């Protein structure tokens, strides 16, 4: 993936230089290995900060909300879908954007990598094709990227961008063999008490920092329901039922919109796999409405249109 870096720099330099865009949004190398930082470049001479590697795990559509400039941006599969959603939901205009599409080979799960390093802090990271190397105090390990993909990347069905002005490489084959919902299906067969305790357990360490909410491009409401006070839908303490209510509603507000980009899970300081909530919604959207979010600008979002023939079996 690192091979995209040069192309991104080159094109960003031209786009900024020719005045085709006012700013360029991408990633730069962070101060901590495995942590890249989203960056907005304003001058052609700064483009060498830009980078693309297997640690670009956030969702850059998050940085587009209500911006007014002409913006150049890099987008892999999932990010491009969130850009589509942003355009459909009037958070940004298509003609404001110049999208450099990146056929994505998947990104890596930094927690799994750290686990492979016995959770010791790293000093360096480099990658080369299908392998990457981590370095720490007194150790160095070369690992296979394939074995460290994030769980959402493992089952991703849209690795090629769905919207772009240029594609920076040849499309990659889509991975249609895997079942993205095997985990959801497994849980679906459990009795209610098992499900409840599974989810109670899942969120038991949540500190309500809202990183999951804020990392998600879908969450741009001026006032989030958790902050509403008249009425107050959910208490603000770490009472388990309030935390559960937060998670249910956060996920539900992503219904029909979530692209399973995994940004929410990536940012959680206590590693809560909260995609288990959104994935159920994604699965039902697919099964009941044949819907996957953000694939095209041609259809309105799932909850913004209906068919008279919609699924009705659950209604008396």
């Amino acid at each position, binding site marked *: 993936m690192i091979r995209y870096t040069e192309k991104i720099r080159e094109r960003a330099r031209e786009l900024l230089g020719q005045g085709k865009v006012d700013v360029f949004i991408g990633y730069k190398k962070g101060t901590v290995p495995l942590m890249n930082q989203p960056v907005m470049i304003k001058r052609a001479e700064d483009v060498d900060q830009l980078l693309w590697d297997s640690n670009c795990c956030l969702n850059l559509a998050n940085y587009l909300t209500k911006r007014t400039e002409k913006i150049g941006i890099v987008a892999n599969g999932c990010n491009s879908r969130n850009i589509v959603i942003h355009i459909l939901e009037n958070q940004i205009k298509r003609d404001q954007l110049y999208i450099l599409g990146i056929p994505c080979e998947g990104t890596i799960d930094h927690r799994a990598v750290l686990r492979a390093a016995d959770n010791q802090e790293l000093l360096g990271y480099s990658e080369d094709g299908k392998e990457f190397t981590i370095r720490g105090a007194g150790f160095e390990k070369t690992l296979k990227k394939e074995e460290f993909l994030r769980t959402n990347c493992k089952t991703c069905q849209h690795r090629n961008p769905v919207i772009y002005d240029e594609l920076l490489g040849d499309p990659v084959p889509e991975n249609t063999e895997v079942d993205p919902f095997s985990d*959801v299906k497994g849980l679906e067969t459990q009795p*209610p008490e098992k499900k*409840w305790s599974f*989810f109670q357990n899942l969120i038991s360490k949540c500190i309500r920092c809202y990183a999951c909410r804020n990392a998600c491009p879908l969450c741009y409401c001026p006032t989030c329901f958790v902050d509403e006070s008249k009425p107050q*839908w959910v208490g603000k303490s770490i*009472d388990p039922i309030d935390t559960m*209510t937060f998670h249910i509603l956060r996920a539900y507000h992503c219904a029909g919109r979530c692209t399973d980009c995994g940004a929410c899970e990536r940012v959680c300081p206590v590693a809560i796999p909260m995609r288990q909530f959104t994935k159920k919604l994604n699965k039902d959207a697919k099964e009941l409405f044949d819907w996957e979010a953000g694939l095209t600008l041609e259809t309105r979002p*799932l909850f913004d249109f209906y068919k008279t023939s919609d699924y009705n079996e*659950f209604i008396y």
Partner: protein
Amino acid sequence: MNEWSPKITAFLCNWCTYGAADLAGVSRLQYPPNFRVIRVPCSGRVSPKFILAAFRQGADGVWVSGCHPGDCHYLEGNFYARRKFALLKGLLEHIGIEPGRLHFSWISSAEATKFVEVATKVANAVGALGPAKYLIKQRAEVA
């Protein structure tokens, strides 16, 4: 000791099911007394937050009822609602709310008998599950 009987929050559309409940009343049809009715202007007005709020406050069941598809007073509110409810029901049941706690129906204002039938069905289903177990907000569990 009183025998337990379920408390069910019912969000009934003003233009149809609420009328059906009325009609059932004037027609002296019997139906279970377990419902706390909240009159709403449309099933489309029922936010998932309302449903969660009901469960949080200890409702043993929730029932939302609106106009038949095509009959919405606002033309299409119930069509939008149907999509929302389909996914909400799936999610709530996935996290452990038992199937049989959350119900939806389309009942026109003329359908007093259907109202009675569905009300009975809902009350029986919730009753069979016993008191609500999950998502009930108690006194804050904090230090």
